[in-house]
């Protein structure tokens, strides 16, 4: 069980630009969180504090009992896994198998446990037939799967996915959303940084909206898509189905319809 806590976080980059200012938030084990906002709003800066990739300029960040100021990424990564938006920033091993094994070796697992985990995770992500292949020979979707699988194999309590569906086609998005559901069933905390509103609406239950370095909204997707002022200020567009149900008067002023299947039931 790992609770994440951010107290009065401020982050100023070496070039003097303040990226996050005065953010307070706590996240319990097992929540599905999305972090949204325009590029440059501070959302990636915020989430990078949870695995120690960035340290607070001011304020405190706790991963469980660990103050991230006092612990390195290596230690924090056992609890919080971070999947990069661009798999090329993460993958470096010469084969898919080596890539999947790397983190497991790093956290000191015995060899037979490593083998079992690699077998299971490669099956789950459809990578079994590519184990001996160089990841860079794979297409973008599969390479993204390798990046995700190598982090999930370490079984961290918290998994951060940075723009998981960007550049993916329909089937790629479907596969990623299925993995998120599975992590949720396993009781993991999932934090998604995303512009993909159907994903935010259907697969997460709490949204943090960042705008010009500040956290301006912390609530459910249903509440967010009914809050016109926040949508306008951040240029967020609700899923088409949400707008439709609102326009025909089938959703209340404070609650939104979030998916096609929900709309089919309510209409």
């Amino acid at each position, binding site marked *: 069980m790992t609770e994440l806590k951010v107290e009065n976080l401020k982050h100023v980059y070496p070039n003097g630009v303040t990226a996050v200012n005065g953010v307070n938030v706590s996240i319990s084990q097992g929540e599905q969180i999305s972090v949204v906002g*325009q*590029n*440059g709003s501070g959302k990636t800066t915020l989430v990078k504090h949870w695995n120690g990739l960035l340290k607070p300029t001011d304020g405190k960040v706790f991963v469980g009992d660990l103050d991230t100021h006092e612990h390195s990424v290596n230690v924090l990564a056992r609890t919080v896994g971070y999947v990069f938006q661009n798999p090329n920033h993460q993958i470096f091993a010469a084969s898919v198998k080596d890539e999947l094994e790397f983190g497991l070796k790093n956290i000191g697992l015995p060899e037979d446990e490593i083998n079992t985990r690699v077998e299971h995770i490669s099956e789950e992500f459809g990578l079994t037939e590519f184990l001996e292949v160089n990841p860079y020979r794979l*297409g*973008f*979707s599969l390479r993204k799967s390798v990046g995700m699988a190598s982090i999930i194999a370490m079984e961290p309590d918290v998994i951060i996915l940075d723009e998981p569906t*960007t*550049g*993916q*086609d*329909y*089937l*790629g998005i*479907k596969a990623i959303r299925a993995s998120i559901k599975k992590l949720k069933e396993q009781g993991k905390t999932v934090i998604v940084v995303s*512009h993909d509103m*159907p994903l935010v609406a259907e697969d997460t239950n709490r949204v943090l909206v960042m705008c010009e370095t500040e956290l301006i909204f912390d609530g459910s997707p249903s509440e967010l898509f009914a809050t016109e002022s926040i949508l306008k200020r951040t*240029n*967020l*567009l609700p*899923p*088409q*189905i949400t*707008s*439709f149900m609102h*326009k*025909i*008067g089938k959703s209340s002023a404070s609650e939104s319809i979030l998916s*096609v299947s929900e*709309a*089919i039931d309510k*209409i």
Partner: protein
Amino acid sequence: MSVIKVENLTVQYTGEEHKALDGVSLEINKGEFVAILGAHGAGKTTLCLSLNGIVPNMISADMYGMIEVLGEIPPKIPVRQLAAKVGSIFDNPEFQMSQLTVFEEVALGLQNLGVDKVTIEKNIKESLKLVGLEGFEERSPFEISGGQQQRLAMASALAMKPEILILDEPTSNLDPIGKEEVFSVTRSLNREEGLTVVIAEHEVEVISEFADQVVFLENGKIIEKGTPSEIFPTIVDRQELVGVRVPQVTELASNKRNLFKTIPVTLSQAVESYKS
């Protein structure tokens, strides 16, 4: 009047086992807005790159069949020469930037074509205005937002006064504001300036609003072709097979046919066709 004519086009990249395009036939008229849809690897990029001649002139491939763009045969003329008539925009605008200022960036293509200074300045002014980047002339192309960079790439193409714009997933790396900026500029270039637009895109809700014609590719072959209203309702039951999602309102109406007069593909159609 057709500006693009492709007949039985087959493309196989050098050293690859599979055909990237396999017998594609397509005709695009002047002023049309055409969207190319399909899963990764279906052939969308190859089709775009064949229309501007980058395949096979810069990326080596065997090409069979007939391809004609504005009366030219792309494989037979230099890419740079065709670029004056056919502007191309790719998914990663940063890779297209090389100059120190926005002005120089837009000037580059024109200087390469040997256009005189007065015309260059006039064209730069006009094209920056079309994409809403007036006043950005002295800014660095690397210090503006992703949406602004993509509009700058469009301005560079527009300065050469092209008749066709080819856009290969132009918004896939942009945030919502950036996407909206690029789509609305593309739409006004098509509607107001009469440019023919060919765009490969995954955002089906936007495509349904804009496109006159959608072309679905699968394994290098065209499997569907028609208006969004003709095609999207017919693929509701095979989205997985085709590798493309349908607009959410189309999916809803297909499941609740009795509540809709027709199957909509856009939000406004859905509101209109809903029987309240």
